[in-house]
């Protein structure tokens, strides 16, 4: 997980929302993972202001919370794109050439191994170890929707479709 914070991660955090989440879990420190999951669901990453607030309210140190947040692969301290494309690199997908799909996605979105999010803020490519849809390998998941039996060509048209969708929404 990347620790550096970039300019684009700075945005206004609605502390009332964070408070509502904290209330839902009774400010219980054993629930910090669930609390952070809810916050990340809204902001698509964990803003620093939110983390500081959570640490204070549940009564643990900021460093402890930071330790938990950075331990788990699903938490991100950087802002993510509108579409989070999870590319399965599990064994079944691997033997059915998921690396080529990943490469095609990098190229189509303008991302890469060292740069997980695209400059236009639309895409974040994440590598996950297994999505559990091995029968349909290779698979990718876009915001909780599974796309099966991917090929480099299908990956490229998926990105094009998402781009179009984003354009229409805008």
């Amino acid at each position, binding site marked *: 997980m990347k620790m550096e914070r970039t300019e684009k991660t700075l945005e206004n955090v609605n502390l009332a929302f964070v408070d509502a989440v904290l209330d839902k879990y009774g400010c*219980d*420190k*054993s*629930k*910090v*993972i*669930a609390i*952070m*999951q809810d916050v990340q669901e809204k902001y698509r990453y964990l803003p620093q202001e939110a983390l500081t607030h959570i640490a204070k309210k549940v009564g643990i140190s900021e460093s402890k919370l930071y*330790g*938990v947040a950075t*331990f*788990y*692969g*699903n*938490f991100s301290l950087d802002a993510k794109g509108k579409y989070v494309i*999870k590319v399965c*690199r*599990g*064994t*079944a997908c*691997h*033997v*059915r050439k998921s690396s080529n799909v990943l490469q095609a996605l990098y190229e189509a979105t303008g991302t890469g191994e060292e740069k997980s999010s695209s400059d236009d803020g639309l895409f974040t490519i994440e590598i*996950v*170890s*297994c*999505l*559990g*849809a*091995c*029968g*349909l*390998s290779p*698979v990718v*998941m876009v915001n*909780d*929707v*599974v*796309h*099966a039996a991917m090929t480099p060509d299908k990956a490229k048209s998926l990105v094009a479709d998402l781009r179009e969708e984003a354009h229409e929404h805008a």
Partner: protein
Amino acid sequence: MREKIGSLAEFQALQEKCIAAKKAEKRKVLVCCGTGCAAGGNLALYEELKNQIAAHGLSFEVALGDAHEDSVIGVKKSGCHGFCEMGPLVRIEPEGWLYTKCRAEDAKEIVEKTILGGEFIERLGYNRGGELSKRQEDIPFYKKQTRRVLEHCGHIDAESIEEYLSIGGYTALAKCLFELTGEEIIQEISDSGLRGRGGAGFPTGRKWAQVAAHKEEPVKYIVCNGDEGDPGAFMDRSCMEGDPHKVLEGMIIAGVATDSTEGYIYVRAEYPLAVHRLTIAIAQAEELGILGDNILGSGKSFHMHINKGAGAFVCGEGSAMTASIEGNRGMPRTKPPRSVDKGLFGKPTCLNNVETFANVPDIIKKGAAWFRSVGTEGSPGTKAFALTGNVVNTGLIEVPMGTTLREVVYDIGGGIKNGKKFKAVQIGGPSGGCLTEEHLDLPMDFDSLKKVGAIIGSGGLVVMDEDSCMVNIAQFFMNFICEESCGKCTPCREGTTRMNEILTRITQGNGRMSDIDELKSLAEMIQSSSLCGLGKTAPNPVLSTLLNFEDEYVEHIRDKRCHCGTCKALSQFVITDKCIGCTKCARNCPVNAITGTVRHRHVIDTTRCIKCGTCKANCPVGAIKEG
């Protein structure tokens, strides 16, 4: 709105009602809405089916007993059938027909021909080599299976507690609450010989007895491990999605047996549908008073919580999982004390895998002898496997313990894809090993596999054909472990990194012959000095591929070749004599490395070739080989 059940008699009355409602559904269409088929478009098909049925003016119900009529059509969303390769799937009852590769456009025909006319649509049937199998159970993929844990997966609406009750659900729990003592329940589980399905195979009955023995402790916990992290495994996901109440029932029984009142299910965040279905199941069970205080008026209580994982493979280890539920970094700790003595929140904890809990209700209902009627002496019962990779029929299967690899790969799996040769099977994920042709007749059970350096693990079976590079697979798993090592102990954190470096340089053509010995010595060190199971088993894929395919390592190191063509740095593109001289490859090569005249075999200049693969992709006759 459901009413709370206050007594055994009320429970039995409700169950009778559900069974009668099920009987009234003369015709049923079950649309598979597991992760696989949903991705294939089955949700749209489900909606379209309802539209089409309504358009014909027929009455139908989506929830059991909705229609209050004697003869109705049930249109249900079911869980995973396991035959994901042929999905999206639709099952037709009462005939038991299975339609494969369905599309929303097929809904009209299904309604008009099958539902109205009772006619089988051959086009949608499973057809292999000209042989049509109408009934699901007649398809070779299912014929050889013994589905116990997965018996109802795909056959019932996974989001309805009434459907679960209609197939005898929660009867085992009622028996435990009103007829059996805690000791008797544990005795039955012990007699059945059920062993933990998560990988290690620890006797479940013994674990429960150890937790129950802490009579002095008022608070004990039941934890269900649904953190199915092994890449290539998805049986627990299908179980939680397809029959969530079965898992809950097993957990509540464990609670009754060990006198625990709190249960936690830890599910991977990558399984949103499993979390969704479990959440529904828990809410329904609470409404009916099957969960909560004073279950079915018995005076016993049990509360269920769901914890979503946050993406850490190591959390599948018991002590790491409890640390994660407590809201900490999921790092394993030194044992003893074991979790049965001091687990979650420092209290005695019974931690079992999803499939283990799902086995429990049937053992209580049908008895230990029934459970032992299949499987081997040391490993009774069945095991679910996720069959994936280069095999014809990928999917979820369940077979008796002791079934041979040959039966699984060839009879159920239908052999290797694209007519290629079988090379190996990787079993047990990153903690397991590979099995080769000589192991094809080995019975798959806990003890036989251990003898050959592999483990059942959680049950992932990845089939590899002749084109799969074993050094690459070893590097793949080591890379996975490197990323997932929690970093607490040095041998695992640094040792796996070193091993990964060595394997990477071998796959890139920079290996040294001394690397093989170095890999072995690092492996031994990591195995003997790591704290938890993740580290102790991390070198297994390397050791097992070294044992069975050392010549491939030597080929990579000494000859600088990867004959499978997987390791790009070592592979070369070669035009074989299949070439018809169409010149297409030469015209498409971006670096003009291909020469030849029309209607004559072309040649690739390997010094200029940049291995982009354009020629191979463009060749109309498949004459270009990589290796």
